[in-house]
């Protein structure tokens, strides 16, 4: 069963078309990754799915409910963890969770055991009486995940769940997420621009300039790159690029003095290539493609290369604030 069905979502902010017709579906119990550089329209899409924004056109259903017509049913079926913290700093962890429980109408006899279960799972039970302003960034995030789950949602939205956290905390948060999925058959919809994190996802949609440019399992996406990535450094890189394009019919790209191209069955190709290549090779490497390569291939940009559209991004943010 699909817990999210989005078809042709469009969102315009005045002149700017932030989302340009995005369609996808998310299955029950699936970890669905939404990737893309900042300003690609990820957060706008999330905001539409969780009823914070109305789409300009298109349709979306969450847990079978229409995001425009059945807002409160949609809200009741989702849990959310935002990019920025959204806890009440003056209250304790427990009070924050209780507020959430009351707001979602969780019956008291369900609320208390659920609260305990989640706080224990997130290893915050001992600190439940601590005020949020004494919490570290990682603890806050864990508490927000616990809070998002309190009302037994069908989908948990995680918008950059580990942004700004140290690697150790990030790993732990991922352990919790995997554990959760197993326990509650929960669908997880997450955005990130950490490529290594996206490896945790069952399926990944890559978004760029308001469109999804790819949507598949990680393996298939990597296969789409065209085999293994070979990177070489030669005495004369320009000549090497000419040779690779002409003689070998590759599409090499050059970055920081290193030429890379893709080839199927890289291990078998390498020995032949080394003995046959006319120029002197300074270094040579072979690796499996990463999501980074997928991204590069699909968008022609590195995912972290944000300077290009930093203006766009600022515009988006200014607009988001106004809406």
């Amino acid at each position: 069963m699909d817990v999210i069905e989005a078809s042709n979502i469009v969102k315009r902010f005045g002149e700017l078309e932030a989302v340009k017709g995005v369609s996808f579906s998310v299955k029950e119990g699936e970890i669905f990754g939404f990737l893309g550089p900042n300003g690609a329209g990820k957060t706008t899409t999330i905001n539409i799915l969780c009823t914070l924004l109305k789409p300009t056109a298109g349709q979306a259903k969450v847990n079978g409910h229409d995001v425009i017509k059945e807002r409160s049913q949609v809200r009741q079926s989702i849990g959310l963890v935002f990019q920025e913290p959204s806890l009440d700093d003056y209250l304790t962890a427990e009070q924050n969770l209780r507020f959430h429980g009351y707001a979602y109408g969780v019956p008291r006899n369900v609320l208390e055991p659920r609260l305990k279960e989640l706080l224990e799972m997130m290893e915050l039970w001992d600190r439940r009486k601590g005020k949020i302003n004494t919490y570290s960034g990682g603890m806050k995030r864990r508490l927000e995940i616990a809070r998002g789950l309190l009302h037994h949602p069908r989908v948990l939205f995680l918008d950059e769940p580990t942004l700004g956290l140290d690697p150790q905390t990030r790993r732990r948060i991922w352990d919790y997420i995997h554990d959760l999925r197993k326990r509650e058959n929960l669908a997880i919809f997450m955005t990130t621009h950490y490529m290594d994190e996206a490896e945790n996802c069952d399926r990944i949609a890559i978004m760029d300039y308001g469109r999804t440019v790819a949507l598949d399992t990680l393996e298939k996406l990597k296969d789409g790159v065209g085999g293994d990535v070979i990177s070489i450094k030669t005495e004369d890189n320009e000549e090497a690029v000419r040779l690779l394009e002409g003689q070998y019919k590759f599409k090499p790209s050059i970055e920081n003095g290193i030429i890379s191209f893709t080839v199927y069955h890289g291990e078998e190709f390498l020995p032949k290539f080394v003995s046959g290549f006319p120029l002197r090779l300074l270094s040579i490497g072979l690796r499996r493609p990463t999501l980074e390569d997928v991204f590069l291939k699909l968008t022609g940009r590195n995912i972290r290369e944000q300077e290009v559209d930093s203006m766009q991004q600022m515009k988006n943010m200014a607009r988001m604030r106004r809406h």
Partner: protein
Amino acid sequence: MAIVFRTIWVIAYRELLRFVHDRPRMFSSFSMPIIFLIIFGAGFGRLIGQMMPGVDYIQFMYPGILAMTVLMTSVMSGVSIVWDREFGFLKEVLVSPLSRSGVLAGKAVGAATIAIIQGAIMLVLAPIVNVPINLGTVLALLPLLLILSLALSGLGLLIGARMRSQQGFQIMMQLVIFPIMFLSGIFFPVSGVATWLEVLSKLNPVTYGIDAIRQVFLGTEVAGVTVFGHTMGIVDSAIVVAMVGVVLLTTAIWAFNRQE
């Protein structure tokens, strides 16, 4: 409809929790009124004393100071929605199934409850400054304080519904709270002053709230605002404040729903 009531109570509950947890805020909302009471009382007491028959200045000022506590608490609580927005908590509320209109109503109810608690604490000062107080006074005061604080939290919410940053806060404080405070008859009777001042004060709805409170304590001899030849009684004044409050609250809810 049930969801609106749940929203009101959940939001009001959180306001109260916060209030209990935030000692400095509780303290600061008392400090200014009490400082005014002491300094102005001592400073102007002898000068202004003769203006009002039968009461000394501190007695005259006390009901106004009580109202001032309510005023500051209510407006500030209303505007606190800006804080919620700035620190992200508002988002938690907005994605929940709670009703948007209920959120503001809940804020107002929470603010009014806090204001009344603060006002009740201020009542302890009444015997010290020689203002007569009994159960009847307290019972008559409650609805007045409630109406006044709901109306003023409506004002705070209206400002907060549209405001995006905390910087606006300071400006708001100076451009809204101070004029309202000084043009409301807290410190001097609104009649018998310069005409422009009298006109401005009579346009300020808070004036009527304060006057009604003063009438409860001191009777009609030193209080009662005359508008177009009609001297406003307690009920008249309460109606004025209530009407203004309804307008402020509905406008705030409307502005908030449009914004978010």
